[in-house]
């Protein structure tokens, strides 16, 4: 598939993200994705992001395939045991899905069904290993499969984590388990991202730097306080705080473009997480020189 080819060729690769709706009205989201067709190489589809019950990633990925868009199937370990996870990977393959991003997933108590059983039978590393096994024609206990799926497996890493070393150790384990590309948590500090890239360059695995569009100064402060590995510098918070409400998207796009331009020399691509601001993605890319 085009995404795998591009990212493995070393060309600068751009991915964006789609969050399926809570419900079944999906046409609007698909239309929005179609407008980005020539600008974005692949679309991650989130899997019950933040543990909120929504339409599934697998079905949404298939709808993208039907429209000629390339999906990256996000799969988490939060609410399925190893039987269901392996089965869903096989299902993804027969539905034409070739890229998989494996995550551990947020805890169930953070979402809208805190009463649910947290599963975590596997984690990101053991699921990557299981997926690699399926590609070799075997399930987790060694039973032979009829036909082998083929995937480009990816994983996530958080360059702003403190301490950083456990993240790097885990990144290396993910690579050993089969991860062929990485997408990162949102980056706001290019200096520390550069430091991270200097450390992980030796792994020779493409890294797509994460971009989250700031919507307000409040959002930035919230993330600084609550979200692991995110440190929005004061200068961006001030820029957002000083902008009028109607100017905020413009300022946000300017900040994102500045970060993307800075990342061009550092990593192998970017991953844009618009979180509802999908309509601004074209301007972000345009202002970044794409």
């Amino acid at each position: 598939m085009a995404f795998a080819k591009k990212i493995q060729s070393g060309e600068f690769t751009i991915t964006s993200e789609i969050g399926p709706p809570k419900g079944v009205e999906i046409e609007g989201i698909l239309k929005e994705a179609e407008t980005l067709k020539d600008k974005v190489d692949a679309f991650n589809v989130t899997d019950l992001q933040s543990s909120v019950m929504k339409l599934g990633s697998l079905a949404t990925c298939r709808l993208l395939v039907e429209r000629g868009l390339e999906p990256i199937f996000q799969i988490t370990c939060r609410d399925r045991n190893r039987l269901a996870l392996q089965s869903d990977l096989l299902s993804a393959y027969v539905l034409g899905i070739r890229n998989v991003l494996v995550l551990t997933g947020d805890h169930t108590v953070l979402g809208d069904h805190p009463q649910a059983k947290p599963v975590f039978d596997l984690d990101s590393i053991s699921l990557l290993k299981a997926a690699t096994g399926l590609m070799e024609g075997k399930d987790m206990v060694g039973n032979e499969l009829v036909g082998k799926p083929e995937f480009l497996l990816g994983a996530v890493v958080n360059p702003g984590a403190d301490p950083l070393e456990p993240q790097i150790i885990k990144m290396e384990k993910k690579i050993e388990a089969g991860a062929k590309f990485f997408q990162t948590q949102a980056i706001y500090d290019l200096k520390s991202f550069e430091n991270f890239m200097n450390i992980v360059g030796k792994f020779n695995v493409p890294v797509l730097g994460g971009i989250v569009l700031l919507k307000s100064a409040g959002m930035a402060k919230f993330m600084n306080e609550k979200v692991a590995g995110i440190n929005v510098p004061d200068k961006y918070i001030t820029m957002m705080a000083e902008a009028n409400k109607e100017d905020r998207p413009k300022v946000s796009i300017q900040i994102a473009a500045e970060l993307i331009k800075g990342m061009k020399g550092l990593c192998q691509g970017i991953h844009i997480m618009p979180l509802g601001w999908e309509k601004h993605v074209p301007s972000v890319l345009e202002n970044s020189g794409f």
Partner: protein
Amino acid sequence: MLITKLKNKEEILLLLEKKPFIIKCFGCKEVYFPEDEIEELLKGNESKIIGVARLDYLCREEFSKLYLTRYSSQIKKSGAIIVFSCGVGVQVLAKLCIDKKVLAGCDTYSLDGFQGLSVQNANCEQCGECYLNYTGGICPLTACSKGLLNGPCGGAKNGKCEVSPEMDCGWELIYKRLKGLKIENVTKESKVLIRNYKRILDELGYNKNNIKGE
């Protein structure tokens, strides 16, 4: 209620190469300890062992602290401490001897009947495949809110778990403990770990006719 069973023989013999000091718990009356099996296993390996202590209630931190002073010179000379007890005992000793590798010689299984009575349930899940040898003597099943076996999820902020600002990130504690033990490349310490629920299900009598898996 719980029972402890010896880890497999090869695994323990490998641990003996570290010139260990051995602590056997014969603790509480609700627990079965494999004392005879331990004796048999250690027979013929005396030269590798720095010393042996047979103690009770390792789970009581204040008792264990006193015991340790009694054996401090031997422990100092040892390459590691192997503890034959339930998962709680191992974790208490690992906490008290942060500069020493504290290893588990047993797996802890749960038995129906006494659940809820023991406060020590808190940090041993009686999973039947003790992971403490990979994680510096801190249980990843109970210290991590997701029970992850292969490292932190990345959701912790300032050392605190994503589920509560009051809860430490278990994997950050493990990382710091391993770092303190100067285990330079923590990755080498462990392979990809995947929990085997069959062990406890077998113990509960499930699956008697199923020969698949393991």
